């Protein structure tokens, strides 16, 4: 198959970017999308041109490194799929394919399709953990956890931090990302003591990082490669209100 690639090229965060056109012919439909980009890059290097920069690592859909816009959608058109798990067979011969970096105020472009997502790390490090030192833990089976809660917590914890939710949101909100972590820990008895402080700090950091407000359009969840449910956002809101009310009660 042949494809016409339109790729956003940008040298750095301080320079202007633009879309460049590339044509690739005789692409094997069974290769992955990133392997197709490898082929393009090999060709560019042979022509002594600068290859397209993009983040990727595990190529198994779990590390969360890859992630950019394909034809206006985060990680492309295929449901519940990271870019690395997208295969050329899901495109048509002679398709035009537009590749752009995730666009969000809190994700600066590093180069071409690569963006800086360290704001996510700062949200986690503000309070996305259980405060327990190594060696302090008691016997694991002393706290039985209801299977359905444990399974639900797992589904929230399955977030890979790729940033597709932010890129999908018209407000560039990081609500789904933050809510997934708040939910994961709120569903488990561990660290229950810190729940109010956790949700307050994580929401405050999310706001300070410049992410927009959540208006519950559900675009984030629809585009999430791991299908993190919007229920997480409802759960965050509940925890947040509980924390605010708890604070009021304490003050009284």
């Amino acid at each position, binding site marked *: 198959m042949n494809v016409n690639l339109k790729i956003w090229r940008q040298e750095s965060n301080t320079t202007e970017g633009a879309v460049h056109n590339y044509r690739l012919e005789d692409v*094997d439909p*069974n290769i*992955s999308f*990133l*392997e197709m980009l*490898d*082929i393009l890059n*090999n060709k*560019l*290097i042979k022509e002594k041109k*600068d*290859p397209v*920069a993009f*983040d*990727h*690592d*595990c*190529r*198994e859909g*779990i*590390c*969360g*490194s890859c992630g950019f816009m394909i034809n206006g959608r985060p990680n492309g058109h295929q449901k519940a*799929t990271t870019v690395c*798990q997208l*295969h050329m067979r899901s495109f048509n011969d002679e398709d035009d394919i537009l590749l752009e970096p995730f666009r969000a105020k809190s994700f600066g472009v*590093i*180069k071409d399709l690569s963006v800086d*997502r*360290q704001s996510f*790390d700062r949200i*986690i*490090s503000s309070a*996305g*953990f*259980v*405060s*327990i*030192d*190594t*060696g302090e*833990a*008691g*016997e*694991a*089976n002393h706290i*039985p*956890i209801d*299977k359905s809660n*444990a*399974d639900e917590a*797992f589904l929230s*914890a*399955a977030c*890979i*931090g790729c940033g597709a939710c932010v890129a999908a949101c018209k407000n560039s909100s990081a609500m789904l990302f933050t809510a997934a972590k708040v939910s*994961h*820990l709120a569903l*488990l008895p*561990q660290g229950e003591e810190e729940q109010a402080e956790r949700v307050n700090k994580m929401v405050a950091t999310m706001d300070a990082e410049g992410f927009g407000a959540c208006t519950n359009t559900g675009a984030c969840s629809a585009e999430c490669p791991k299908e993190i449910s919007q229920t997480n956002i409802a759960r965050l809101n509940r925890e947040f209100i509980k924390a605010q009310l708890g604070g009021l009660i304490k003050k009284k």
Partner: protein
Amino acid sequence: MKDFLLNSSAPNGELHTKWEDYKKTLNKLSPEEANQYKIIIIGTGLAGASAAATLAEKGFNIHAFSYHESPRRAHSIAAQGGINAAKNYKKDGDSVMRLFYDTIKGGDFRSREDNVYRLAELSANIIDQCVAQGVPFAREYGGFLDNRSFGGVQVSRTFYARGQTGQQLLLGAYSALSRQTNAGKVTFYPRHDMLDIVTVDGKAKGVVTRNLLDGKIEAHSADIVILATGGYSNVYYLSTNAMASNVTANWRAHRKGALFANPSFTQIHPTCIPVKNNFQSKLTLMSESLRNDGRVWVPKKKNDTRKAGDIPEEERDYYLERIYPAFGNLVPRDVASRRAKEVCDNGQGVGNTGVAVYLDFKKVIEEKGEKYIKEKYGNLFDMYQKITDENPYQTPMKIYPAVHYTMGGLWVDYNLMTTISGLFSIGESNFSDHGANRLGASALMQGLADGYFVVPHTVMDYLAKEKPDFSNKTDKKEFVDAVRATEKDIEKIMSINGDLVVDEVHRELGKIVWDKVGMTRNKEGLESAIDFIPKIKEKFWKNISIPGSDKDMNQELEKALRLKDFIELAELMAHDALDRNESCGAHFREEYQTTENEAKRNDQEFKYVAAWGYNKDDKPSLFKEDLKYKNVKLKTRSYK
């Protein structure tokens, strides 16, 4: 060459109480005292992140480096199946002693008793710690933790979180690390490659890094350095490792004097999605846990082109169940891989290429239903379907062995310190616990045991005997020289301006290493590899082409800096495999096999760890550590 020069420095005493007794003798530092020291940790996967968090909790100042943008991207995240622990929740007779014995036997009696026992002993603490952090392990309906079985064992001791156990454990360690970042005890350097180790008066005192965003070469000084940089499977080009996984940190340490142990002990995992074409950039693992419920088979007839569903039961060869009635589909990885190669070499392979075998779930789906499979392995089945465009609920998976893990690594003593004083190595990057073959679900166990529970004690003891030297020493000659040498290497690579893309050379290297130092090896092949690899090295230094500038994000330069070290490692692997005139575990020399095609060990001559020293422009020198077995009897491994 000096025989048995190396000593693990393990303390004397009873195996069962050794670690606890030893810990009591180690020197301690109060948090205030610890605050006077700075520790550099390279790599923030399971081992690095857990060590960084724990040492920071004890008061040390940690500077952690990763080439990723975030610790959560480390390749530990891709580990699927599970983590072993001798909890004996299933009351199936498991114990620390049994986990210890299974691991020693699985490693074909080429690992160190003291280290392996300690690992088995610590395994239970890991589960406690991770559960306390909120890791959502799979649970039974009663609310207790669930277990499953892995290869090479007859008990159920593997804890898991669907097929994403590595992800959940790494996110746990990452959360502990993040907590210490927040507390100001950890400084994280994202997108930094470590390109050299700096030693002062023979002790590791710092590193040279390259900032991958602007190409800046910088020196960093500290009181000690810990390498937690993973394995080197990507020397084969195609492996299940992530694209950027590399040997550079370990190799730079090796060139500075750290011995490299058992480099040819590399694990070929039996269940991976087969290679499909020449553009293939990496291989994908299908977790070993699938062998709990899947049955491996090939057609009895050679070159059988019928579809799997059209081949009647009596014309199928469930070869693992046939050859190994006791362990069946759950034999260890090295055995399952070699048998797959054997049936394919015999013309019984399936698929377009004939280089694959079936992993069939029909029976379990009939008995327990699709929902059962979905719950246990859902993400793996989805991944398989996305990659191959085939539905494994309906047709059997096609699988073939692929490089997955490296048992070899930097030689370390009982304290996990390399032969360079003050340089520690933890997790997959050291050689210590898995001998000649690692059992499934043991890598996560080792990474976390080293990081959470071993190195924090041994590092504290080491530092308690060292004066803190907190001030920045990077203007010292040793640092200035190391920075200059690294800059020179980069200038040289940037100026080659040939016509080969780095990947082309890497692919060529990978093919040689796979063909000659892969699933099976022989003298002739290894000698030809030793002859041929220097030609690849020459090609690299004369013909590669790096576009753009080194003062900018340059992913081709990153690849080239890694490949140059892989080439040198490949040669050492061939030397190691050639020198070991026996078969053991994953190291299968065709000349040394039993009449039943099993590995034939030679304990008289090769019951040792082969640790290699680097010699510039000369053959490597061999140092041996004798393996002493006081608690287990050396036996021929049998899974029949």
